């Protein structure tokens, strides 16, 4: 059983991983670039736990126990006691390569390096280390504490043992793991993006309103939320980046970003984070129902 976990990069996803693992009883040490960022991350996790208490999801005692298992640092070498270290910095190859190369030099050779990426190549990241067999991808979905799925991604050189340990870790933190081979977009991203993109085309072509498109999918196919609201929650700029990445990697026209998406991103309508995308949102991220 994993007793300690290292996490590098405590942005939204990193915080989610830290919180989830600590909740499952694992001691977590996370690394950020400055004291200030460490404190910001701890503060954000505290706020997230308070929100859980408000929603009756946990008690104050649970919160105290979880926080007591979390420690922040600015020194990556402090992660060397953890058998598994997850990198969760921004999804950018240059940045991730730099982090991986640094971790490879300070962590013991047996440590498993995990990258949390939704689309980048594990093989390419593994190539900057001296342990390509012990590099594996784990794609957590957002928000991490609420999504019970993780994609465990094999690179070309990832060993069976590494994949086994990554899946075992996923089970420990109460996630269901699916195993995927490295390929642009894996399963989740590759399937959801064309759906979102097609929904935007339907709106752009004047076939139906954004609201009716979402109603069609929620009521017609029992989706918990419609594709356009999902896109708004992901951030339309992110959706555009991923679409461009898939289009670039695979070259198929079905991944060509919808022109309406480009237009909205240029106009600064990025979804929930700017308060407006296909729909309007309040500061707490709740959708504001329009009055016809």
């Amino acid at each position, binding site marked *: 059983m994993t007793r300690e976990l290292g996490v590098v990069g405590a942005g939204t996803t990193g915080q989610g991983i830290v919180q989830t693992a600590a909740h499952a009883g694992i001691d977590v040490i996370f690394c950020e670039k400055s004291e200030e960022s460490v404190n910001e991350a701890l503060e954000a996790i505290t706020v997230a736990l308070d929100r859980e208490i408000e929603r009756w999801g946990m*008690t104050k005692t649970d919160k105290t126990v979880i926080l*007591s298992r979390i420690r922040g640092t600015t020194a990556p070498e402090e992660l060397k006691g953890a058998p598994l270290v997850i990198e969760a910095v921004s999804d950018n190859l240059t940045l991730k390569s730099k982090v991986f190369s640094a971790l490879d030099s300070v962590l013991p050779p047996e440590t498993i390096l995990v990258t949390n990426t939704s689309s980048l190549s594990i093989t390419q990241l593994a190539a900057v280390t001296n342990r390509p067999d012990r590099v594996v991808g784990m794609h957590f979905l957002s928000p991490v504490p609420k999504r019970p799925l993780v994609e465990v991604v094999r690179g070309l050189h990832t060993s069976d043992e590494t994949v086994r340990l990554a899946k075992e870790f996923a089970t420990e933190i109460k996630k269901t793991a699916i195993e995927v081979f490295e390929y642009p977009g894996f399963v989740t991203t590759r399937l959801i993006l064309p759906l979102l993109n097609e929904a935007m085309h339907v709106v752009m072509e004047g076939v139906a309103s954004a609201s009716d498109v979402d109603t069609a999918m929620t009521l017609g196919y029992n989706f918990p939320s419609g594709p356009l609201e999902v896109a708004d929650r992901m951030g339309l700029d992110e959706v555009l980046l991923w679409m461009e990445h898939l289009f670039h990697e695979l070259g198929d026209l079905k991944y060509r970003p919808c022109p309406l998406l480009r237009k909205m991103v240029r106009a600064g309508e990025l979804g929930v984070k700017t308060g407006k995308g296909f729909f309007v949102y309040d500061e707490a991220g709740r959708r504001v129902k329009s009055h016809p």
Partner: protein
Amino acid sequence: MIVLVLNCGSSSVKFQLIRTSLEDIEAGTEEKLGRGIIGKIGMTTATVAFEAEGRPPVRETPVILEHRVAIERVLSLLTDPDVGVIKDRSEIGAVGHRVVHGGEKFAQSQLITEEVLREIVECIELAPLHNPHNVRGYEIARELLPDVPHVAVFDTAFHQTVPEHAYLYGLPMVLYRRHGIRRYGFHGSSHRYLTARMERLLGRPRTEFNLITCHLGNGCSVTAVQHGRSIDTSMGFTPLEGLVMGTRSGDLDPAVILHVMAKEELTLHEANTLLNKHSGLIGVSGISNDMRELIKEAQRGDQHAQTAIDLFCYRLKKYISAYYGVLGGADAVVFAGGIGENAAVVRERSCDGLESLGMIMDPKRNEELNGREGRISTDDSPVGIYVVLTDEEMVIARDTARAIAGNL
């Protein structure tokens, strides 16, 4: 024989060392040698508290990350030359384990065999929060004390005599057959202890009286005991049903939770925590789940605290009245557990107005009797009202001795 009683929870191990035998049970000469609790297992500052007869008490906060280390610590405390009570672990003649759920398989305590263990594991689905830790505790104890018998004592066993019309819910029968959805009842060891104790206090065999036993602790339940057998109990499929408790709602219209889940967009987990951890006394008062604190606040005039106490006592009164009818009359009402043994005001309020059923409280006796055993009704009250200090560990120790003697 010396019996080690173990109660393993998710992050705690409670234990007692009790000297008992069939003769001791008969003569009432059992002896408690030591007791303790290891809490906050899994954290770097676990809490250890241990007290043995005539020895200095132990309080420490070591690093205890898992149950194995905790149970090893239990054995080292018991055998410690300065604070312990036995010289060597070989003096322990048997281990009695508290197991929360025995399903429909176990109406009695069991000597744990491979077969019994397999069936306890099968009950995990019914008690996913408790049985896994009970099983883990057994497995570790078996490794550390391999040569002595281990006995499982179930919280549900005493209620296996509840008849079908009281244990079934008004739901499609297929749910009972498919998923075992029925009333199981809990706190069985406590209700059994109270029944046995009342034999002594009433001076009659249990086959000659009916009782309403109220176990009011962190969790609360009431049982209708007819001639020594449980015929109905307030907790149900899980310990959530029945009385208002410290953090649990007890009875409510099941449609409420469906409605709230939709309105507040709650997940199953959130709804479960809402009902089990954020409701009851703490949910209603917004102050505390501790009755002592609420009584203090209510005396100071806090309306929320008063409302929580009102709800608690009213629900209890409803159950006492209902079980009086179910039993066709009762000989005694028994209060036990932290609240039942110490909160005179709760006892008074929950029997208030039940004079017509023959329950006549003596206010002075009730006020004076706290943390002690005795009668709190008037001498001529047709139904006796009693306070009894419950002792689940003693039941586990006794059953362990009986199971080994093949005399359950």
